[in-house]
């Protein structure tokens, strides 16, 4: 290279020219020329026809893509790709199957009420879990926090007249239980966001510790009856024929569904799960929002604990160790992505009911209920497989 360029005054002998690749003008040219030359005239013709066909095919594809961009089709496509649509179809299919099999007992009013009552505490925990999963987190502590809340509140009742406590006592006890549960959730949120402990571990620790605290308080023996008003209204009472449990859980789902869909709180929840750097760089206090989300999940588990206390007329120390898995299953069946950023409250609502409906249906047609667990397990794994497949596809495009 030296000597090819003139020495400009400002240069100290070095050549500023970018290194030029050794020129081989002959080699590419020979390749392009030799290919047609080697081919016989007829082969050349087929080659040309082939390429023309390919062009036509590509053009047709372009036109198809353009046509697809129409608004109506777009709405249709989004409806069918939205995960909750498929979940809803699955629920309808299950219901249709059992209705045909057992038209007189399945989905009668009593059966529906039973299903919904059983699902109520799960649904409320799933509402909180949806927020957590949308931030790409997970809350394993829900069942234990439910127990903790019911223990705290029942313990308060025992020291304030037990079964004969009045409304004021009832309300204080409830607020106490929910507050402790919310604080528990907030602490987990702090561990996740500030101490950078993976949510799986932070809430697994919280899961064990909350149950441990509950056992310490009660000495391992379930506490007895809460005051009459609790039992008679929330526990067993109903409004306009609909049990309070169902009313409360449905209202909670609706309210927080609206919060998720229409407010800034929901928007930030989606944004954090989608890409935490985006809201962080937009000046949003991501850590504080995460703490709020985990606090909400804890508080809702606390509310579920109050409902459970009222419904069961006492605490239930055992029997909630698998609630977390049931709840997470419901949320994921409802189309929420464990990778965050995708999901809906409607999906969660449907997702929570699928195992319950399946269970009830299998009992009614006399099939071993254990099949429900097998079916749900298979569907769950399939759902997550599809989700990560979709995510991989998205990242490859991006």
């Amino acid at each position: 290279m030296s000597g090819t360029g003139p020495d400009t005054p400002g240069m100290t002998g070095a050549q500023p020219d970018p290194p030029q690749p050794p020129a081989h003008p002959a080699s590419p040219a020979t390749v392009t020329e030799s290919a047609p030359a080697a081919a016989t005239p007829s082969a050349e013709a087929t080659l040309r026809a082939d390429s023309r066909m390919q062009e036509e095919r590509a053009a047709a594809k372009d036109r198809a893509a353009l046509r697809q961009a129409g608004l109506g089709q777009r709405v249709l496509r989004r409806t069918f790709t939205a995960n909750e649509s498929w979940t809803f179809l699955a629920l309808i299919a299950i219901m249709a199957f059992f209705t045909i099999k057992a038209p007189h007992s399945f989905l009668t009013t009593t059966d529906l009420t039973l299903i919904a009552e059983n699902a109520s505490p799960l649904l409320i925990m799933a509402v909180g879990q949806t927020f957590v999963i949308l931030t790409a987190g997970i809350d394993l502590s829900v069942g234990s926090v439910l127990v903790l809340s019911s223990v705290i509140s029942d313990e308060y009742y025992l020291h304030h007249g037990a079964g004969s406590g009045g409304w004021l006592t009832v309300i204080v006890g409830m607020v106490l239980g929910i507050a402790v549960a919310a604080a528990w959730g907030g602490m987990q949120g702090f561990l996740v966001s500030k101490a950078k402990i993976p949510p799986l571990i932070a809430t697994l620790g919280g899961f064990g510790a909350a149950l441990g605290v509950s056992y310490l308080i009660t000495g391992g023996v379930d506490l007895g009856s809460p005051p009459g008003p609790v039992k008679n209204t929330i526990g067993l009472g109903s409004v306009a024929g609909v049990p309070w449990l169902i009313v409360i859980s449905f209202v909670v789902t609706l309210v927080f569904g609206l919060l998720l869909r229409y407010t800034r709180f929901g928007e930030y929840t989606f944004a954090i799960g989608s890409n935490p750097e985006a809201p962080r760089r937009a000046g949003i206090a991501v850590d504080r929002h995460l703490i709020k989300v985990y606090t909400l999940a804890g508080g809702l588990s606390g509310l579920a604990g109050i409902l459970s206390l009222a419904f069961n007329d006492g605490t239930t120390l055992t029997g909630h160790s698998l609630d977390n898995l049931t709840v997470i299953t419901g949320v994921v069946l409802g189309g929420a992505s464990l990778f965050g950023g995708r999901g809906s409250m409607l999906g969660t609502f449907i997702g929570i009911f699928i195992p319950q409906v399946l269970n009830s249906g299998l009992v009614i047609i006399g099939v071993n209920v254990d099949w429900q667990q097998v079916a749900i397990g298979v569907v769950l794994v399939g759902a997550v497989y599809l989700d990560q497949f979709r995510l991989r596809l998205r990242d490859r495009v991006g």
Partner: protein
Amino acid sequence: MTKHYGRVLALDGAEFTVQPGEVVALIGDNGAGKSTLVKTLSGTIRPDGGEILIEGKPVRMTSPLDARRYGIETVYQDLALAPDLDAAANLHLGRELYLIPFLRVLNRSAMRERAIAAFSDLGVSLPDVTAPVATLSGGQRQSVAVARAALYASKVIFMDEPTAALGVVQRERVLDLIRRVRDRGISVVLISHNMPEVLAVADRVEVMRMGRRVAVLTASQATVEQLVGAMTGALEVTAALKTVAGEEDRSAFGKEIPNGAQPGQSAGTDPAGGTS
């Protein structure tokens, strides 16, 4: 501007100037300190020394929010969009419009309208502002990021390699977008490794090397060779540029090169020595 990372000196008295309504390219080899400089100027990291003047007045920047208050926005290399939110939501992330402010209920239709207006202002064509950003092409996503910055910046937008991951056509679109942003009176600082692109879009070029500004060039008079020479330190002062950096390491550098540049002495053993 000075910044240490432990014993590594990332910025060694670096200077940088942006005039109103111009595109300045900030170039330099990897590790020259471009990104560090931009991060100090956009409030992301705090410098160890030096000062920032905006319209002649010294300002303190302790967070990106400070920078934003002064009308400075940044477009990051890795986009910083939320892929599951739509373009309108991404445009308003952190600056939502409300239907019921008390309850923080979002006014999605107003945000959508504003997004459509902002995109058409900048000549960005998106098929659908309500589609999740994940479904857009790389160029469209970068356009959303640039439009987002342009919507809020009143003075300067920093762009760190905005075209690095884009194809040829998309790259052209983003460069057009940069020109349109400039034409609205907002200065654009462009970090890029693509020299032809720098010369095509920038009004001025500032070159960094080893944590210092080593050259300021007028883009219309500069050549790719000059840029590369200034970046690598091979090129000394010419009529078109003035140096800022010290002379010592350069003169040391200069001594070595004539040795390698004499092929007669090293013939056969190191024929490429002169090109370094």
